[in-house]
């Protein structure tokens, strides 16, 4: 890819240097130490989406590898089939081509490492051990508890936390200004609230809004979020609250199997939908209590359709009582 201008803002405004990254200051400080000494251990970056894990990995690699970045840096996704086989083969290839560029090691970023099976992680552990002089790993995941202990113990674990509202809004303001968009503070606040502090999602929202108009305020943000939210999800919840389980199940199946919405995304949207709904606080609390349990179980690995169906059935029961 050439050095021509990027048109998708999450890429265009992705910080190239560790210094430019907002939030997680303590972690960035440590990473800068690595960059200074041109050395790094295997790392595990854990944390929610949109807080800068990939950006930090990229920036760290760029600063350590310098002009040799392109030839010595590789990103792979662990949720792809055969990922561990690919990782091993890639690393073996590295071993053969060593010395290229006179660098001591290459950097391999393994995204969604928490999606790897235990078996694959065991294999990864051996690979990390054997080839650590040749290749350093940065594992990225949302849930570090899904990474087996032996792998964790071979890594320095960095837990990324949510970026503060101030930092997110500040960054959004910077982007807006650069793109000559007029956005008021309330509007940017609203973008932050809607995405639960996921900076990447915030930037996507900002760009989507900018497609339609150069002026952004709270009202427009709310309209956009309302319309972009999947309509059938709204109807699914509505039917379920009215005790029409069959209807609401049909919607759920459509969302899962036709729209191919990820279960986490459905939970996330349900959460927002409930928080903003016009209902008593008691009812809200009861629904959120249930939804929280659903989200937890999904992370634990429960079947999404039946777990969400149970929620829809329960929501009807809660409203009735």
């Amino acid at each position, binding site marked *: 890819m050439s050095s021509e201008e990027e048109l998708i803002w999450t890429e265009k405004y992705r910080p190239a240097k560790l210094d430019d990254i907002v939030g997680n200051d303590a972690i960035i400080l440590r990473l800068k130490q690595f960059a200074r000494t041109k050395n790094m251990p295997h790392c595990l970056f854990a944390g929610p989406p949109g807080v800068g894990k990939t950006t930090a990995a990229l920036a760290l690699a760029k600063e350590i590898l310098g002009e040799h970045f392109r030839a010595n840096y590789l990103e792979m996704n662990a949720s792809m089939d055969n990922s561990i086989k690919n990782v091993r083969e890639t690393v073996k290839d590295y071993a053969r081509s060593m010395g290229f560029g006179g660098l001591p090691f290459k950097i391999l970023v393994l995204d969604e490492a928490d999606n790897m099976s235990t078996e694959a992680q065991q294999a990864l552990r051996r690979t990390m051990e054997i080839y650590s002089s040749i290749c350093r790993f940065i594992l990225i995941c949302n849930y570090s508890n899904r990474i087996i202990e032996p792998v964790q113990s071979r890594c320095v674990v960095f837990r990324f936390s949510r970026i503060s509202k101030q930092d997110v809004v500040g960054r959004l303001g910077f982007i807006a200004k650069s793109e000559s968009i007029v956005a008021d503070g309330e509007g940017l606040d609203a973008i932050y609230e809607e995405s639960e502090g996921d900076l990447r999602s915030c930037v996507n929202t900002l760009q989507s809004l900018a497609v339609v108009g150069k002026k952004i305020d709270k009202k427009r943000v709310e309209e956009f979020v309302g319309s972009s939210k999947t309509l059938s999800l709204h109807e699914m919840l509505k039917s379920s609250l009215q005790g029409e389980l069959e209807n609401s199940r049909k919607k759920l199946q459509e969302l899962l199997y036709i729209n191919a919405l*990820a279960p986490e995304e459905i939970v996330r949207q349900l959460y927002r939908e409930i928080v903003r709904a016009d209902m008593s606080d008691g009812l809200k609390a009861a629904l959120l209590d249930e939804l929280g349990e659903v989200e937890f179980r999904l992370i634990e690995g429960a079947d999404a359709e039946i777990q969400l169906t149970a929620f829809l059935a329960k929501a009807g029961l809660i409203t009735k009582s």
Partner: protein
Amino acid sequence: MERIWTDKYAPQKLIEVEGNRKSKEDFVSWATAFGKGSPPWCLISGPRGTGKTSLVHAFAQENGYDLFEVNRENLGDSVMLDGVREAMFNTATLAQSGPTKRMILVDEIDVLASVKIGSRSSENGYEHVADDENVSTSVLLKTLTDTRVPVVFTLSDEDELYRNKKLILLKEKKLCAHIKLTRVRSDTIRLVLKRIARAERLEISDEVLTKLAESTEGDVRAAVNDLQAIGAGEEVVTSADLGALGRRQTAAGGYKTVLDVILSPSIQTALDKLTSSTEDSETIFAWMVENVPGSRSPSAAIYESCNELAESSLFGFRAKRYRMYGLQKYMNELMCYSPQLLGEHRYMRLNFPSRLRYLSRSRAERARTNLLAGVFSKYLHSSPRAVLNSDLQLITGLAQGNDAFREWLRRKFGEEISELLLST
């Protein structure tokens, strides 16, 4: 060659036909009232192996009826229809051979109605064809409307009565009485088996008899066949011999197993069905997920039931993920427990799992989005899933309303990708 036990021990008298006492009485009243204003036809419906044909045979034998049978063997023979006509009208022969009464039995009318004449070469001897190609059943039925002797039809798939237009005459109340048989209770089947075992001097424990009786869900014939399969030529049968029995093959394995699991009276019997099934657990689970919430039970029961099923999936996931296969048994237990919570409303019409249906239907669309997600996830240093959930929407939006952006897409990702993106 040894006779088939179902034949050897076929009931000779009505009283030997087990179960369905009320229906037997109804049948006797209908037959004895023939010619006195009652309908000339009688339809006996009920699941396979509940004694529909046996009932007619036993009644005819016991009461001195000469039975003319139309069945899969002679259907389509040109002489068959002549035989029917003769049986219906020809009273001359009756006079000569004494006070013989006649009865016509059209066995398995639902099967006959879907059989294509003259094509008996296929594996099971019949080929199912569309209604309009099938003339002979309607001709037969039309002929039979003028009958002067009682006509009995048997039918095992009652839905066929409403599906197949050729059978419309059977629904006319003035023409055709309707008697229904239900599944025979397993303790009744056990008695039948015990009687046969005794006659065959076969030593068999109550436990094995019970298992045999329960395993066929009210199908007496199947239970007797099973008994012969493991007991013929033996002196002693133990529960170890049960393992030799193969499962009856049915059209949709997942369907059958799930029905078994849902309807089982206890977790234990459900587990037996589940573990003896050859279907893979994912298919069975998909059938469960589709159908358990569709029960007509109160929503509280549905909720509990779904919850158990979700728990079950959690154990399945853990067993696989952490390779703790000992956890698999909890998955199975809870899967079997789940429908127990539905109470009385467990019987339901099973639907094919949506997840399997949609998967096959939307394959092309998924291939498209997966390809796009793959391409853009590389560019955005992100996972395909994240791209699918948020970025792809933005990119599609940008591409739709913006020439410059489309041009950029083409340069960066190629003609193909940019077209694929706009091809929704």
